[in-house]
């Protein structure tokens, strides 16, 4: 699940990636240690390495769809899509996408939210990956998977820069965390 378990242990790029992410305490509300990937985007090498690790993994897997979850999935997804020759499909909050969409609701801590995808963006039988910056409970990713499966695409894998180990989530299928073991260690110490 985590990068270390996927044969990337010791990949020299992971440390730089981990260190480029900053934690902002009490955002968006008290008690939440927010994993801010925008600092990673400012570090050209770390940003490129992040994209390269995903591209190296997916380029020969016949992926034709990269679906990115709004909004931080948009910061990594298109670069990966371009590099592997796949299309990029944004999965958005309600009423952002024009034209005909399908919607999938998912649970939040309090209440529900909704993810939408364009009708016709994905064809039956296409092989897809879902990208987001971070996975916590897996609720958003599960909704993303359902949207793609409703369009009869095959979700090959979910890929995230960060996996929050200490949050136990119910995931419909096994998802692959591209996690940063170094990052998690730091997290626990602060």
């Amino acid at each position: 699940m985590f990068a270390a378990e996927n044969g990337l242990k010791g990949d020299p790029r992971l440390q730089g990636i981990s260190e480029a992410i900053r934690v902002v305490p009490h955002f968006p509300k008290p008690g939440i240690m927010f994993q801010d990937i925008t600092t990673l985007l400012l570090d050209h090498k770390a940003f490129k390495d992040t994209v390269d690790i995903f591209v190296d993994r997916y380029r020969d897997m016949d992926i034709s769809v990269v679906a990115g979850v709004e909004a931080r999935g948009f910061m990594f997804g298109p670069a990966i899509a371009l590099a592997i020759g796949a299309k990029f499909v944004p999965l958005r909050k309600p009423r952002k996408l024009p034209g005909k969409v399908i919607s999938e609701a998912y649970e939040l801590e309090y209440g529900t939210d909704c993810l939408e995808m364009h009708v016709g963006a994905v064809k039956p039988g296409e092989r897809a990956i879902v990208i987001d910056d971070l996975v916590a409970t897996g609720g958003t990713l599960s909704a993303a998977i359902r949207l793609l499966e409703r369009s009869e695409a095959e979700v090959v894998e979910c890929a995230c820069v960060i996996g929050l180990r200490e949050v136990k989530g119910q995931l419909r299928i096994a998802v692959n965390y591209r996690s940063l073991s170094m990052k998690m260690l730091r997290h626990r110490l602060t």
Partner: protein
Amino acid sequence: MMRGSLLPRCSNSIFPPPPNSNRLQPPSLKRLSAPTAASSGAQSRLTFSQNYRTAPNRLRCSVSESQWKQDREMATGDEQQDPRIAGISSAIRVIPNFPKPGIMFQDITTMLLDTKAFKDTIDLFVERYRDKNISVVAGVEARGKPNKLPGEVISEEYSLEYGTDKMEMHVGAVEAGERALVIDDLIATGGTLCAAVKLLERVGVNVVECACVIELLGLKGRERLGDRPLFVLVNAT
């Protein structure tokens, strides 16, 4: 670091030009107009369809075809329209009356599904900017709202058709003296782009150019940017 020449100004002020070695061609020479897809002599009509593949985008063209041909000849001068533009243009679909009646929404998500058009779009920008010493690409969030970025930010308010909105940037994301591009999918009135430019200029960044895939003509976006260069791939009305 020098920042005296880069204090925020209204859109009518004149900015000192960048050093010649980094100077870009005036955008008016490089502005690439899109031919209307499948134009057959008659003024093209707008069609809309939910089917991505069978209804190519027809950018509504308010000029007659002879005028369009003339404009195209003027644009060619010593610049041919890049052959990739037609494919990019036809990959963009128009959704009428979104998000509200009367607005013809230029939907670039269909272009993201066309791997060639998407790649060509990026390539056109990359080719233009790769040797220009740009260290920052600032991307604008569509209909962005405040309170999304964690940590310390600076804000810039800007006008909407009704009311105002606020755009934010992280403190410390950029340094005075850096050379930046501002990217958005589309320029209409230019309000959003202007706010983005001001955010950067307030911290002493040199905004070398604004780059958009689409320019909506007739809304004076280019004017609102004043002397700040604007580069677009496709025009629409």
